[in-house]
């Protein structure tokens, strides 16, 4: 692995090694660029992933505290962990459950489709669907998505049999084992899914796509990736002309270092990406780097999320099998007669012990609570994943109460659910209950809003520089050599789990950077 000089002004710096950063590293080194990629966490591998849920959580999760406010449930139910994502090489692609649906054409035209919705800051994406679809196809081939490009679908698990039978009885038509970035057959030098059910602890067979063992080793094989683990970027610097010149970071020993760069790509997950831009305030950018519009950190979206569990008289053993191998797609439409704008997916889900009581029933104690866990063998589960409304005041700011180990303010998250989110959640959890009741559930249980696993919108793409932070290529409106390469750029949330979109947009951004560099414009 090369070690580039700190004063090498020719390198591209990538902050973060997840779906966006890891993909960018492969794509840019492939094009001959020198890359320094920073990752705050340590490097694990399928051999080191713990198979104890509690240990795995500690091994992979971003555990630095956040402060939070607002009326959304995690303020009360999950005060120290409002968002559940990773801090490790490969980022959140290490613990993700690999659902890879596409956004629908109506969803990237949310403002036009839904019209003006009071209290929401909707906008249309500055990109044509035909263009996005072209990059989805490239991304689906890269990830080996099931049910696409001839890759067989996943076989049906017990948990999915319950979902499928119930959903069919309700009249749903588009019910299948989901689009998954998990090998249903050996592929791309990796094995097939053996239905362990431990997707979230890191996939021990590497059947699930993660940049940790796909994009990043390929970038390393190019001889042009300098990956610095346990290094935390605290600031992006710029010159008098307003171009990014490099980053300040703490190395693994905690010492401050400064890496020069020709281009900076930020892919720290939408919470940390916004925090880094805000921490990079300067005389020229008094409210944070690339934040002349004031939109950095705003419009934070995290999807309408809730678990629905059904309890039956007979065993389901829902922990066996790929976690998200099932979906009901029929509600992923815009039909205002349901009482809300936008749509949702119902996705198969299970929670291990102890995660079920921690995440699924976080208020719980006493007889009623315990009686749910007593039925663990006989439970089926699903997760609502719906489009939430962007709101200007749902935002990431710098905490005024909490600081990190380096004395820097941590991220503060403020969220007030929009009435549309509340109405959608009520509808979706109601349909989830009906699915289970249709096949004889003796009881159904709905979770509160869970900690956010999908982070979006905090540096959103816009045509108008006043309405967003980045252009259609994720390039900062105000800083020409600064790119955002993660879910922060999503103009709106849609109902699709964001990773496929992050990868598709990163592939497109990398091509754009390659073209600009080749043309001498970057």
């Amino acid at each position, binding site marked *: 692995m090369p070690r580039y000089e700190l004063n090498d002004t020719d390198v591209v710096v990538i902050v973060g090694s997840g779906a966006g950063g890891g993909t960018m590293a492969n794509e840019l080194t492939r094009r001959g660029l020198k890359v320094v990629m920073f990752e705050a966490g340590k490097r694990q591998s399928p051999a080191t992933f713990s*198979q104890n*849920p509690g240990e795995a959580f500690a091994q992979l999760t971003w555990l630095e505290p956040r402060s939070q406010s607002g009326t959304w449930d995690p303020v009360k139910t999950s005060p120290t962990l409002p968002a559940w994502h990773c801090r490790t090489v490969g980022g959140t692609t290490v613990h993700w459950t690999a659902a890879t649906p596409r956004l629908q054409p109506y969803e990237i035209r949310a403002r036009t489709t839904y019209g003006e919705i009071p209290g929401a800051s909707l906008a249309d994406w500055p990109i044509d669907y035909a263009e996005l679809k072209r990059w989805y196809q490239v991304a689906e081939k890269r990830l080996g998505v099931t049910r696409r490009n001839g890759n067989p679908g996943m076989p049906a698990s017990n948990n999915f049999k319950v979902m499928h039978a119930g959903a069919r009885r309700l009249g749903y038509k588009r019910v*299948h*084992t989901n689009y998954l970035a998990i090998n249903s057959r050996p592929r791309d030098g990796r094995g097939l899914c053996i239905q362990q059910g*431990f997707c979230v602890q890191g996939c021990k067979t590497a059947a699930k796509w993660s940049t940790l063992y796909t994009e990043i080793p390929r970038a390393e094989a190019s001889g042009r990736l300098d990956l610095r683990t346990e290094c935390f970027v605290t600031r992006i610097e710029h010159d008098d002309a307003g171009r990014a010149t490099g980053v300040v970071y703490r190395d693994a020993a905690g010492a401050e270092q400064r890496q020069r760069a020709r281009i900076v790509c930020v892919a720290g997950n939408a919470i940390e990406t916004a925090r880094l831009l805000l921490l990079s305030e300067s005389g020229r950018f008094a409210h944070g780097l690339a934040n002349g519009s004031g939109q950095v950190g705003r419009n934070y979206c995290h999807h309408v999320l809730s678990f629905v569990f059904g309890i039956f008289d007979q065993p389901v053993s829902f922990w066996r099998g790929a976690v998200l191998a099932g979906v009901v797609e029929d509600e992923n439409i815009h039909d205002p007669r349901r009482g809300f704008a936008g749509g949702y997916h119902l996705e198969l889900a299970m929670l291990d*012990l102890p995660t079920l009581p921690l995440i699924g029933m976080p208020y719980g104690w006493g007889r009623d609570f315990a009686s749910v866990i007593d039925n663990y063998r006989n439970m089926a589960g699903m997760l609502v994943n719906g489009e939430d409304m962007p709101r200007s005041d749902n935002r990431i700011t710098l905490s005024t109460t909490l600081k990190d180990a380096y004395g820097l303010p941590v991220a503060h998250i403020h969220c007030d659910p929009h009435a549309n989110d509340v109405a959608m959640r009520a509808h979706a959890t109601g349909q989830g209950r009906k699915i289970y009741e249709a096949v004889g559930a003796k009881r159904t249980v709905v979770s509160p809003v869970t900690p956010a696993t999908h982070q979006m919108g905090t540096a959103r793409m816009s045509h108008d520089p006043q309405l967003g932070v980045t252009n259609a290529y994720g390039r900062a409106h105000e800083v020409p050599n600064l790119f955002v390469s993660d879910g922060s750029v999503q103009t709106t949330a849609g109902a699709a789990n964001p990773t496929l979109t992050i990868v598709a947009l990163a592939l497109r951004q990398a091509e754009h950077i390659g073209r600009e560099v080749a043309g001498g414009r970057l």
Partner: protein
Amino acid sequence: MKILATQTDSPESADRRSFVRGVGVLTGVIALGHPLAALLPSRAWAVELRVLSSAEAAALLAMIRTIAPHDTLDDAAYALVVNAIDGDAAASTAARNDFKAGIASLGDGFARMPESARVQHLKQLEAGAFFQSVRLKTLLVLYSNPIAWAHFGFEGEAFSKGGYLLRGFNDLKWLPDVPLADSGPMPLG
């Protein structure tokens, strides 16, 4: 937590030891027929406490059983939570004082109250830091140990056994099979 290897280590001898050290001990015997009983050298178990007295540990155990009441789950599983909280209380003087004050707020005789009275009592403490820290520790520790997993049927990690692909991930028979168009073929079939 130590699961002591000899049946002779009776509660009486354990109490004598705790008297010498000024701290407590929590003891029990795993029920005959319990899956673990066949695996362990002895069914007797004991938690040697660093900070809490035997009486405090008994009150705490009753509180944990009220938070997560699974009647047929062995006390040994609950004792793991007591052990973890005792460890937290040993971390600093402030933590020790907080936990001891919290347990004192349960009042004399808490462990002997009927469950309904314990629930009423805990409801009054529910918003406080002591209750919430014990509740969270209960969720974290009680539901992540092999005694509880065996009890609830959770089979845990399966990588070491080749996953569930050929071990029942699709063995549900009380509903119809899913058509191939909505799923996919078994890879090894």
